[in-house]
């Protein structure tokens, strides 16, 4: 198949949103609400109806800033502390201020949140300092609600198109994107004044311990395309070395989920049934204590619930087995794990990039703008730490409204036809071969090597060796074969994964200190070095196409944090373990 034999459809829009999971739809909705005359289009690799992290709904809001429970200032402080001081507070504040209005908006659209008898939101405490969790025991309908609103506002949706590269004009402004149909391999070039990237986490980076390529914590469609596209477009990516690593149900690799069970009295325990961490909120420090417990021989680590009352356990089961990851119940059944009698065995997930849970993302300011004019990033792939689902909605909304304003004063940029030709040639290369290496085996090897060389504790010599192995795989790309559109889709994803592997290694080597607990634990640089590294790191493609790095200062805090408060998350280990109840 020659590139020219493939149909290339070219269309024009004002705003192109790439990724129709959580933040993407909200960006489209808020852009349309800001200016109904704008043409807004969502390009989604899967089907907007059931795509992304919340395909089945969600168990709760993990970071709701609700009046009476927390102020935006308190939230900004909590996240600053949880993320070891490396935050762009303006962006976290923009989220915090938008949090409650977004909850009310979603509520109005029909998303169900838990309320008490008098109709007030039923907030629960999970974080170390404040109260931010709002359960959604009936949170199945989020995607339906979003979809209805997209239809109502006449947002154009193109399902089963995977965006592969962004297009830029000669002045550096965004000009659109190119996508490939995952079922026909047809190309779609979308010219746009503004583009919002909402492609989720890079969740297919490390290999799950089960060895099953798609048994990831994240929805495996989120394989890092967004990170790769931003990188190739010259955008800066921030703090990628602050990996996402989660405490999960062993083998099943989904949340167990301490946020749901914690407020009911469930907790993380060691093999003696004892607590060893004070707070189950996911942070690098929490993961470090988790890892130490496993290393110390006190493992396995469990989520313990057998001390709870029958009614409580029944309630937990209803939430956990019907909502966000409903196959959890099936998994437990086969292994005879009943919360009443047996704790749930947990382990440490594979590594990935995600700012929804951690802090690795494309650099954005408080308007969700990246460093490329006209290009926005929202949700898990945008560098606003610990942003979770509500953050994807709020920052998505901010991006949509800002992009609408941007369109009013910026005409379409023109792109270079040479870029389209180069991209179609790159995309189709694996279809021109009949013999060679399959996408699966190349992906498996890349991800297995990610585990071998990049997992924390991070060792300089290992990471450098990893880089050499990734370079060898890159040479092997000349052998990559795709025999049908589905395989081509996987072959393209595999290349995004390889890009992310290179970025993870380079970013981790650049920051020569340890920070964020387990996320960036460097054996050769075990101390936190606030003199040299109390800053963001950014990674980008330089003018000569090389991977480059820079430090970026942390802007002066808008919410001051006292030095003695800064270490609150460093004291998560329980001093004298309590006896099991």
């Amino acid at each position: 198949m020659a590139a020219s034999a493939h149909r290339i459809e070219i269309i024009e829009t004002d705003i192109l949103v790439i990724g129709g999971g959580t933040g993407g739809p909200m960006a489209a909705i808020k852009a349309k609400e800001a200016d109904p005359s704008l043409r807004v289009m969502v390009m989604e690799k899967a089907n907007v109806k059931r795509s992304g992290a919340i395909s089945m709904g969600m168990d709760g809001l993990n970071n709701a800033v609700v009046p009476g429970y927390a102020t935006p200032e308190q939230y900004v402080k909590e996240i600053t502390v949880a993320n070891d001081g490396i935050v762009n507070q303006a962006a976290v504040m923009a989220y915090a201020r938008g949090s409650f209005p977004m909850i009310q908006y979603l509520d109005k659209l029909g998303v169900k949140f838990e309320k008490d008898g008098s109709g007030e939101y039923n907030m629960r405490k999970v974080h170390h300092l404040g109260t931010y969790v709002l359960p959604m025991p009936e949170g199945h309908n989020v995607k339906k609600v979003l979809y209805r609103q997209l239809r109502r506002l006449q947002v154009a949706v193109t399902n089963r198109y995977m965006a592969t590269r962004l297009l830029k004009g000669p002045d550096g402004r965004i000009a659109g994107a190119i996508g490939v149909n995952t079922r026909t391999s047809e190309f779609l070039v979308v010219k746009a004044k503004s583009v919002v990237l909402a492609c989720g986490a890079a969740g297919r980076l490390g290999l799950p311990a089960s060895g099953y390529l798609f048994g990831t914590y994240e929805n495996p469609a989120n394989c890092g395309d967004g990170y790769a596209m931003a990188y190739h477009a010259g955008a800066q990516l921030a703090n990628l070395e602050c990996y996402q690593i989660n405490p999960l149900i062993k083998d099943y690799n989904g949340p167990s989920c301490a946020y749901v069970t914690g407020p009911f009295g469930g907790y993380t325990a060691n093999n003696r049934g004892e607590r060893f961490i004070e707070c189950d909120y996911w942070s690098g420090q929490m993961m470090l204590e988790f890892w130490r417990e496993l290393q110390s021989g006190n493992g396995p680590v469990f989520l313990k619930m057998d001390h709870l009352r029958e009614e409580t356990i029944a309630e937990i089961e209803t939430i956990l087995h019907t909502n966000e990851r409903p196959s959890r119940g099936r998994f437990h059944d086969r292994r005879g794990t009943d919360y009443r009698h047996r704790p749930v065995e947990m382990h440490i997930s594979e590594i990935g990039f995600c700012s929804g849970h951690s802090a690795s993302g494309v650099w954005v300011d408080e308007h969700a703008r990246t460093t490329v004019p006209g290009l926005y990033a929202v949700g898990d792939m945008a560098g606003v730490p610990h942003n979770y689902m509500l953050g994807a909605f709020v920052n998505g909304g901010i991006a949509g409204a800002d992009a609408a304003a941007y369109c009013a004063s910026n005409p379409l940029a023109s792109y270079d036809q040479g870029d389209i030709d180069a991209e179609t040639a790159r995309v189709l290369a694996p279809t021109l071969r009949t013999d060679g290496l399959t996408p699966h085996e190349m992906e498996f090897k890349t991800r297995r090597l990610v585990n071998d060389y990049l997992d924390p504790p991070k060792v300089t010599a290992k990471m450098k060796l990893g880089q050499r192995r990734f370079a060898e795989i890159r040479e092997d790309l000349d052998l990559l074969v795709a025999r049908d559109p589905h395989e081509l889709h996987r072959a393209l994803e595999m290349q995004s994964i390889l890009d992310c592997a290179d970025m993870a290694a380079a970013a981790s080597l650049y920051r020569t200190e340890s920070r964020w607990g387990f996320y960036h634990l460097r054996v050769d640089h075990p101390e936190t070095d606030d003199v040299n590294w109390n800053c963001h790191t950014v990674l980008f493609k330089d003018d000569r196409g090389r991977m480059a790095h820079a430090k970026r200062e942390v802007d002066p805090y808008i919410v001051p944090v006292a030095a003695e408060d800064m270490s609150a998350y460093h004291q998560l280990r329980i001093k004298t373990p309590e006896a099991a109840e």
Partner: protein
Amino acid sequence: MPIITQSSSAAVVIDDAKCIAEKGCRVCVDVCPLDILAIDEVRQKAYMKYDECWYCMPCEVDCPTNAVKVNIPYLLR
């Protein structure tokens, strides 16, 4: 290098007796976020074509006739 085919068990099972793909239903194929389900053109029934499942269950929940059963893939079961 020539390419060989390897087999694995299908964790997602479709009950042919219940599946109404022959009447044009494509719901499970449409909603699967990993695009791993397909319709067998000869039998006109849905089936799991690729072993790339996230055991997320939209296919099962959205099927109008309850024909789909999602099992946890063997490697992690």
